[in-house]
């Protein structure tokens, strides 16, 4: 992109990570419209196809929550509280619109509160189903049709299947490049650290897809040259709720580990599944954005409509991909982490642990308050975990 002021690759990534909204605010100045989206369930392709810039709404674990308390109590997900807090402090005022989905209860409440108090020019709520039943898939497509209607109303443009397919191709291309980048974490030592990878992911979620593609290309070629990459250290996989700040990753890697793979939503969850190009593009989108996304907010069964449940089969069907990740990226242990008060992940923990113990993969569960300072008490746990798996 001409606009990218010379600096490229990882330098550019760091610039964007430091000042996420700068690029979209430039684009706004050029007359583009920017739509904020929460979590990974809103369909990006539909926005891109209408020449809107999707911009991921994230929290800030370095900023104390002060404004959100009057409408979202402090016993709910601190990440969502932080997002709302930033919104109420005007940090997201540059957004022309906001789209949120029924990711979980608190996510749903956050959406309505956002709509009530911040009432952006465009607001849409996608009531994403919580099962993957056939009926749910069909419903999801209907919901995307509704989304399409309000988007068209807002932009005054028609969302044609042709443009949508173009957008799908673009986003699939970006996803392929992300996976290519993740492949560079397979060698020992990995060619890129977990910390830098996270910065890349955050950057991608802050700029238009085409710019993201170019950025990824530059990053990949730089990383392949492999200068000043990480040292050999204990290889770990990290699972759990959102990580949108390098603080935790940096701390873990600083204690003598390389995070070589993740199962989180500012990471593999957002990029590891493509959208199938179906005749009616909405079919592929409806399927991918309901069935293929890995967040535990969705209820899954080993065998749909089974009449007797077998625990291990159930765990296998829900978590075997973690075994594959561990194998492919040669992880020696797994860090399970979740922000406090996250039900979707909280209920999942004993199950994941049972599975990992079953396949003999050492693991530790860390719970944190989505606050940089409150990460300190985790140091000793992580260090001891590394001493244990030695």
């Amino acid at each position: 992109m001409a606009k990218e002021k010379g600096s490229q690759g990882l330098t550019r990534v760091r610039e964007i990570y430091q000042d996420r909204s700068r690029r979209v605010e430039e684009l706004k100045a050029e007359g583009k419209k920017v739509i904020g989206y929460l979590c990974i369930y809103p369909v990006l392709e539909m926005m891109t196809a209408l020449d809107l810039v999707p911009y991921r709404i994230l929290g800030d674990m370095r900023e104390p929550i002060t404004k959100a308390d009057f409408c979202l109590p402090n016993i709910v997900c601190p990440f969502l509280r932080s997002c709302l807090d930033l919104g109420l402090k005007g940090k997201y005022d540059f957004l022309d619109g906001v789209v949120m989905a029924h990711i979980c209860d608190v996510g749903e409440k956050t959406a309505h509160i956002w709509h009530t108090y911040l009432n952006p020019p465009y607001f849409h709520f996608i009531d994403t189903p919580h099962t993957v039943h056939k009926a749910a898939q069909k419903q999801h497509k209907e919901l995307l049709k509704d989304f399409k209607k309000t988007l068209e109303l807002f932009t005054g443009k028609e969302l044609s299947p042709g443009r949508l397919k173009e957008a799908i191709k673009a986003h699939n291309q970006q996803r392929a490049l992300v996976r290519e980048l993740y492949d560079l974490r397979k060698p020992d030592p990995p060619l890129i650290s977990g910390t830098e990878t996270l910065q890349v992911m955050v950057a991608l979620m802050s700029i238009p897809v085409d710019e993201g593609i170019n950025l990824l290309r530059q990053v990949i070629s730089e990383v392949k040259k492999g200068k000043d990459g990480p040292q050999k250290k204990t290889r770990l996989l990290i699972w759990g709720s959102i990580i949108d700040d390098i603080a935790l990753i940096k701390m873990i890697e600083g204690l003598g580990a390389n995070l070589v793979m993740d199962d989180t939503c500012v990471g593999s969850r957002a990029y590891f599944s493509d959208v199938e190009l179906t005749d009616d593009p909405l079919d592929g989108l409806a399927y991918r954005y309901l069935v293929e996304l890995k967040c535990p907010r969705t209820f899954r069964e080993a065998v749909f409509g089974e009449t007797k449940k077998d625990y291990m089969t159930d765990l296998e069907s829900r978590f075997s991909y973690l075994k594959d990740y561990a194998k492919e990226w040669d992880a020696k242990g797994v860090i399970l982490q979740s922000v406090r008060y996250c039900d979707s992940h909280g209920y999942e923990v004993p199950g994941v642990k049972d599975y990992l113990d079953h396949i003999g993969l050492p693991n530790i569960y860390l719970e944190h308050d989505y606050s940089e300072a409150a990460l300190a008490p985790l140091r000793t746990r992580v260090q001891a975990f590394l001493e244990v798996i030695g």
Partner: protein
Amino acid sequence: MTKVVILDRDEEIQARVVGPTGAEHRRLANKVMEEALEQANLSFAEISYVIATGYGRINVSFADRQITELTCHARGVVSLFPTVRIAIDIGGQDAKGLKISNGKLIDFVMNDRCAAGTGRFLEVIAATLGLKLEELGEISLKSTNKVKISSTCTIFAQQEVISRISEGTPLEDIVAGVHDAIASRVVKMVRRLKIEPDVVFTGGVAKNVGVVYAIKENLGCEVLVPEEPLLSGAIGAAILGKELTLKALAKGETIQRKERHLEEVTFFS
């Protein structure tokens, strides 16, 4: 508390010193270290390896290496009780449960998120009751009908204790209740490791016979307590230090060491 243990190569204790820990970690580490050297009557240069552990480990400027208290406690406890499977350690800052399988730490749980269930809890209560920490144990054993402390938070438990007193509840019953509160909290946490004998109880709080009793009650099994429960972590650290040194020597590697001097650090000029 800051503890120093100096071992010789036969793991004989040459010096053991316990001093308070305050805001000034580093300065105290230095002070206690000097005492220990005096006791062992060694010069600092003669110490082959120094391992720092515990909450303030990063602040021990002269340590050759930092290792977490979890690993060190495990090692220390194993050296004292080779048959240990579960070690419970309650210190001033935190409480830990260690699962040990043939001498190695395999799993652990810890609480450092909240003062309840740590020694701090007892300190606060003792102060509230105008008692010395050491007195609590004996007093509680007199209790015939211990009270139930319903608040978890230390600070609110303290209020509860105060109102109990003004209600005229016998002191021993209150203290016994407090001991049960901390014990049940810690035991509940440690149960996640699936309790197997032998269970060893260490840390400053293990000096309190009342808590030892409460822990036994809550576990429903015996617990072993070392003579000097406070030192197991330091002993473990020293043993690990020795092992690292011998391993290095065996391989003929040179050992990375910090300079052997206690730089004076003064924050509070």
